[in-house]
């Protein structure tokens, strides 16, 4: 097959978009848009890497901080939410062996997240609205630095993403609990109780013989529990957005609302409580659930210590509601008891819950020796390594003593945040994409294994290297969220930039590989209306 034919029709012409079910199309749309937004985040990241070596004259500091504001939001909402929600809207019905409750609502989730991300990204790009994702009060309402109109459009974009998230939440829980047409009545309450861990918790207090069986599989339980945090987080962000919008509307109408009416520390507690539902909640729970699913799919065996894994997921959910204070260890007005109990002690439980997930996944794989080193397996191991590196880094900085010399340095954002997201989270998602690709495409064949291998090594080494060099700069005193004009940390920033280039090349190799796998016609076909209006998940071929 010629290069042009492969480019147009995909590897061996195996991918036929007109055979896709609406559900397959929906999931693939999420994945394509998620990858495009990942590309946005990578390019923004590279611009900032260059800027940290030598500020680019054509990009003024206002623009730089607008990029810094958009970068994590595009990465988390535009990319990760899209890929994760797309995958889970497919996997929940797939694992429950019944159709998605509403494909229409799923499409709305897709549209709202895609459009919402584009809106807040554009608002930041054009108006330079840049209070960062932390939004420390009263910075988001500081209209001497930022445009109220630009900010209002920015918040609107975020609100649309949250609305899409709310639709996702409804769809997941409805799918677990509902009875499809023509089916025997499903035990809705029992299904939800099992998904949320109430059955498992009750079993702890029941005699062995009277223990109730789990009605939903472990990966579905993980998705359900992470979705609880997604729902709470959407509520917090929506409320915060409305609050900021009130001040923006006041400014646009010529009224200067007294910004001191909001307590900055209380706001900070409120905001971090909500944000940690993502960072320390749904991300960790979804990732653990995905590890378990991948381990079971790769080995074809039951999970090692399944009941403990279920319990650990529930503990993680509760932990995620009580750890926010580790972000306020450098806030001297924050009560000491909150710093120690929430900031240090409860946060340390994440070492336990993630450590158990790490062990259980490895043990499940080990028991199925010998395994073939497939793409899903190698990316899964990469993802496990990422969290094994990043979680202890987070536990160290969540310490009253060490936080005093680490907070807001490049250490936080390097070895902890970027290694967790780029290596831990992204490589887990790549493992899921590689394993779901044949199922979602009705058997398309990967264009090049060599490119997949390059993707793996360049991403792994680039991500760990970038995190490491950022961390070294942080230990030398380099702050995050500022600009250095005199090349004070150039040695580390050049090395981090080179590693960032590896990440960019890894992504381009992966994207090219996927395009060549499904072909340009295939990519377009994914976005065309489906031929059949079936509720089946995959085509009956």
């Amino acid at each position, binding site marked *: 097959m010629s290069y042009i034919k492969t480019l147009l029709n995909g590897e061996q012409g195996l991918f036929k978009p007109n055979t896709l079910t609406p559900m397959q199309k929906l999931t693939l749309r999420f994945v394509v848009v998620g990858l495009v937004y990942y590309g946005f985040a990578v390019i923004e990241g590279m611009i900032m890497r260059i800027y940290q070596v030598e500020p680019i004259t054509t990009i003024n*500091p206002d623009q730089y901080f607008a990029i810094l504001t958009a970068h994590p939001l595009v990465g988390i909402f535009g990319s990760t939410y899209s890929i994760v929600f797309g995958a889970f809207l497919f996997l929940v019905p797939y694992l429950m062996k019944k159709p998605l409750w509403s494909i229409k609502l799923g499409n709305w989730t897709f549209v709202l997240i895609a459009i919402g991300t584009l809106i807040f990204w554009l608002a930041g790009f054009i108006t330079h609205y840049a209070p960062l994702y932390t939004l420390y009060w009263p910075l988001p309402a500081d209209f001497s630095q930022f445009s109220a109109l630009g900010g209002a459009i920015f918040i609107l974009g975020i609100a649309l993403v949250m609305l899409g998230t709310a639709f996702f939440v409804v769809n997941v829980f409805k799918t677990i609990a509902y009875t499809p047409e023509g089916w025997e009545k499903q035990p809705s309450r029992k299904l939800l109780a099992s998904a949320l861990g109430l059955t498992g918790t009750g079993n702890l207090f029941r005699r062995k013989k009277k223990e109730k069986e789990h009605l939903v599989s472990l990966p579905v339980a993980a998705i359900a529990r992470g979705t609880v945090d997604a729902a709470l987080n959407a509520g917090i962000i929506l409320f915060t957005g409305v609050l900021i919008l009130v001040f923006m509307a006041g400014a646009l109408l010529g009224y200067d609302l007294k910004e001191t009416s909001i307590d900055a520390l209380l706001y900070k507690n409120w905001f971090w409580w909500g944000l940690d539902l993502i960072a320390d909640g749904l991300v960790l729970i979804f990732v653990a659930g995905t590890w378990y699913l991948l381990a079971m799919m790769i080995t074809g065996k039951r999970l090692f210590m399944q009941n403990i894994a279920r319990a650990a997921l529930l503990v993680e959910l509760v932990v995620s509601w009580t750890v926010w204070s580790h972000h306020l260890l450098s806030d001297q007005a924050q009560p000491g008891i909150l710093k120690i109990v929430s900031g240090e002690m409860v946060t340390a439980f994440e*070492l336990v819950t993630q450590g*158990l997930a790490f062990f259980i996944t*490895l043990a499940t794989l080990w028991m199925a*020796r010998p395994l*073939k080193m497939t793409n899903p397996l190698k990316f899964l191991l990469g993802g496990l390594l990422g969290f094994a590196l990043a979680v202890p880094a987070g536990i160290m900085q969540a310490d*009253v003593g*060490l936080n005093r010399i680490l*907070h807001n340095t490049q250490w936080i954002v390097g070895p902890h945040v970027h290694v967790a997201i780029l290596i831990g989270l992204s490589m887990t998602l790549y493992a899921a994409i590689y394993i779901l690709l044949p199922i979602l495409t009705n058997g398309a064949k990967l264009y090049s294994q060599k490119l997949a291998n390059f993707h793996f090594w360049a991403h792994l080494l680039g991500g760990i290297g970038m995190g490491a060099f950022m961390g070294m700069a942080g230990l030398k005193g380099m702050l995050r969220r500022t600009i250095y004009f005199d090349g004070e940390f150039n040695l580390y920033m050049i090395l981090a930039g080179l590693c960032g280039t590896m990440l960019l090349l890894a992504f381009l190799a992966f994207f090219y590989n996927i395009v060549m796998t499904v072909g340009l016609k295939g990519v377009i076909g994914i976005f065309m209306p489906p031929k059949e209006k079936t509720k089946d998940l995959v085509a009956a071929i």
Partner: protein
Amino acid sequence: MVDSSVVLFGQTLAYTFYCLAIMAVVGWFGYKVTTKGKGKVSNTLFYTFFGFLVVLGISLHIITYNTIPWVEMDLKRAQIEADKTFEITVEDHTFYLPAEKLMIECDDKVLFDVTSKDLTYGFGLFRTDGTMVMQMQVVPGHRNDILWEFKKPGLYTIRSTEYSGPKGIDMILKDVVEVVAKQEITN
């Protein structure tokens, strides 16, 4: 009180060693899982690992509480009398320092009491080589105070360690804090 650079060095060593070890473990696992061999994992190993994680998570903070000298002083600062207090105000992206020079003697307990009149800022002290001594957040409407004991004479720079909008990037006061050997000021 040991200098914070010593604590940082210890942390760097410990974390670097851990990173190399865990990368070696995952690399070894990746190789071994593709080869034939016994695939049994004992429950004892699992529970031992579980216990190890619990002990590690709790002991980390107990160890740092007892070995990092500023932790106890920070948590109990309201009961400790400072040898010297500097009241600093921040407004419109500018630090306003006391009229007299910020001179400190080694081993003295110095309280930096920083008040923000508008936004959330940061207050950090940096050595001349750019490394950070310590920092805290400066939140408007609340008391932001930190008690510190310097061990090394030298000049220190104040810099905002928190993003407060693009205007905040110039919030640097170079070499405005001077620490001298004990009794050098009075002599």
